């Protein structure tokens, strides 16, 4: 059982228009998503831009309002309550933190690092100023920075250092879940390696869970235990990392995986042929994997730890992939 459960979450934005500015239709940014988050695990959320992955993260932490569905935290319904100041939601607020993509704009430029990192502690704990200082030094040390950094301002650091401060701040309130929204997309390769290493070390130390949102399939593969692939506001495939990467079932997942650049220049030609084959398959079979409105089907169990969004009834005989057939027969 997970400590956070997301049930049939929907986030729809109204499109207004016409003479009376009435609601004409909705943009379904997130359209019926289920997610269970357990302690100490990393959940990768992958999708292309506009797939709704960031919206899920923002809704869990309360920066967006859910249209329908529930977010259950330790048995308590906390949907749209994350910003409530009521005492009974305080634990939820404390336990879910976020790391943003752009570390620079996520910090107040007028605050010293001490205050940046201390703010969550001041909100949730009754520490004395000395205790706070000691804790900030500890946190900075965990992300590989000196105690002097405390008295500097955000602009005095490099991008990688700032992102590490962002990690330290997220950990400051001793949370259970950190939502990391593209935490390394703006960073160079070697700096990214550093931030990812720290994130993994902290995870072990505090038994944290991550919801790791990224478009970079390589980074997600490195970080995650479980992965959900998102498209058009819905999950097309969800399961363990091994299953998703080695045995993808949905045509969209296959297409996404085949598009990852191959690090071996000698197999370039073969990789290109394979990629174009998958691309052609995607164009040919698109109607079989999406309903007539272009909506992704509901997820169904393909095997243990592996859910795929397939047509509810058995797929057409024209489908050559036998694995897909067995998936449909269930």
């Amino acid at each position, binding site marked *: 059982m997970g400590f956070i459960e997301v049930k049939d979450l929907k986030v729809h934005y109204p499109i207004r228009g016409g003479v009376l500015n009435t609601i004409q239709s909705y943009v379904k940014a997130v359209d019926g998503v289920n997610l269970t988050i357990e302690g100490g695990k990393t959940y990768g959320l992958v999708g292309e831009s506009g797939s709704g992955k960031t919206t899920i993260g923002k809704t869990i932490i309360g920066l967006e309002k859910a249209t329908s569905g529930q977010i259950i935290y330790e048995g308590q319904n906390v949907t749209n309550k994350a910003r409530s100041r009521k005492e009974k939601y305080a634990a939820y607020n404390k336990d879910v933190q976020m790391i943003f993509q752009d570390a620079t704009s996520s910090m107040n430029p007028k605050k010293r690092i001490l205050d940046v990192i201390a703010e969550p502690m001041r909100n949730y704990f009754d520490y004395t100023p000395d205790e706070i200082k000691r804790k900030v030094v500890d946190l900075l040390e965990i992300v590989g920075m000196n105690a002097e950094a405390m008295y500097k301002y955000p602009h005095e650091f490099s991008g990688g250092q700032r992102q590490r401060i962002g990690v330290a701040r997220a950990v400051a309130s001793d949370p259970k879940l950190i939502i990391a929204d593209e935490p390394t997309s703006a960073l160079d*390769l070697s700096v990214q*390696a550093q931030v990812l290493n720290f994130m993994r070390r902290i995870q072990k130390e505090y038994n944290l869970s991550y919801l790791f949102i990224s478009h970079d*399939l*390589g*980074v997600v593969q490195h970080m995650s235990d479980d992965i959900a692939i998102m498209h058009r506001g819905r999950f097309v495939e969800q399961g363990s990392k091994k299953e998703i990467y080695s045995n993808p079932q949905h045509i969209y997942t296959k*297409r996404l995986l085949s598009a990852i*650049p191959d*690090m071996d220049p000698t197999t370039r030609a073969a990789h290109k042929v394979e990629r174009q084959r998958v691309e052609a398959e995607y164009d040919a079979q698109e109607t079989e994997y999406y309903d007539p409105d272009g909506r992704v089907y509901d997820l169904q169990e393909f095997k243990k730890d592996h859910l795929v969004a397939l047509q509810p009834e058995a797929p057409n005989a024209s489908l050559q992939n036998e694995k897909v057939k067995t998936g449909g027969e269930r």
Partner: protein
Amino acid sequence: MAVERSLLEVNNLETGFRFGDVYHNAVDGVSLTLKKNEILAIVGESGCGKSTLATSIMGLHDHKNTQIKGEVLYKDLNLLDLNEKLYNRIRGNDIGMIFQDPLGSLNPLMTIFNQISESLEYHSDLNEQQRKGRVLELLNQVGIPRPEQIMKAYPHELSGGMRQRVVIAIALANKPPIIIADEPTTALDVTIQAQILDLMNDIQDETGSGIILITHDLGVVAETADRVAVMYAGQIVEEAPVEELFANPKHPYTRSLLNSIPHELESDDDELHVIHGTVPSLQKLPRKGCRFAPRIPWIPESAHEENPVLHEVSPNHKVRCTCWKHFHFEGEEK
């Protein structure tokens, strides 16, 4: 040596930016050649000078705050000697450029047709009807569906991938023999990135242009390049054919970078390689000795050259400094 005449030759290029009264070189003595029908990738992390190199070749720097030395030879011309008027005849006609941010490089108030046609108007004497034909041909070439309609559209009406295709169409308009692409796929999703890279490969096959591809993404390099130059702190530290570079990386920086790529974890303690220290800022950059030395402090000083130059270690494979012979990762036996 030169069997095939190179398309573009850069000799000892130095681009310095002014800080107060001093110029600091962001590109510091870069020499390279681009051959016909070749994709040369320039790879490096932010601040290594790869984009400055591109803008220097294109002559996009102002002369008040920038100092450019060296040679950029194209058809017996040193481009750096040209005045603005002559340069304008080269830019867009002989050298096309593709920028990272397609929205930023398109004019929001001009239709797609006008944007592409602008460069044709300037560089060729095609009449309106002919230009229209050429624009249609270009849009087809870069794989834009319904070109007749798209021609009348404005940039905001197109998706990111489509906009980048338009930018590529503009760069190709006058069939330039040289194309410089500065991070052409960084702002795009992987599936779109794959399409754009395929497109660039196809264009190169069709037109035989030489392409300088500037990127930070080693995956993109492995997928497209023929030859690779790795840049660090304003200098090329390693240059090799792409297969050779990935199979046999020599310079400590190249090896460290390849080791930092996220991969599937083998065990719980498996960590990504982190390069010691940080990239020095332009003003604090040591101008003497091996610039990568501070990042690998466990390698003895004697391993480095006093004045590191590029050495040819095997045919077409050049490495700067001698430290690669003694290099091993920290905590690892040589």
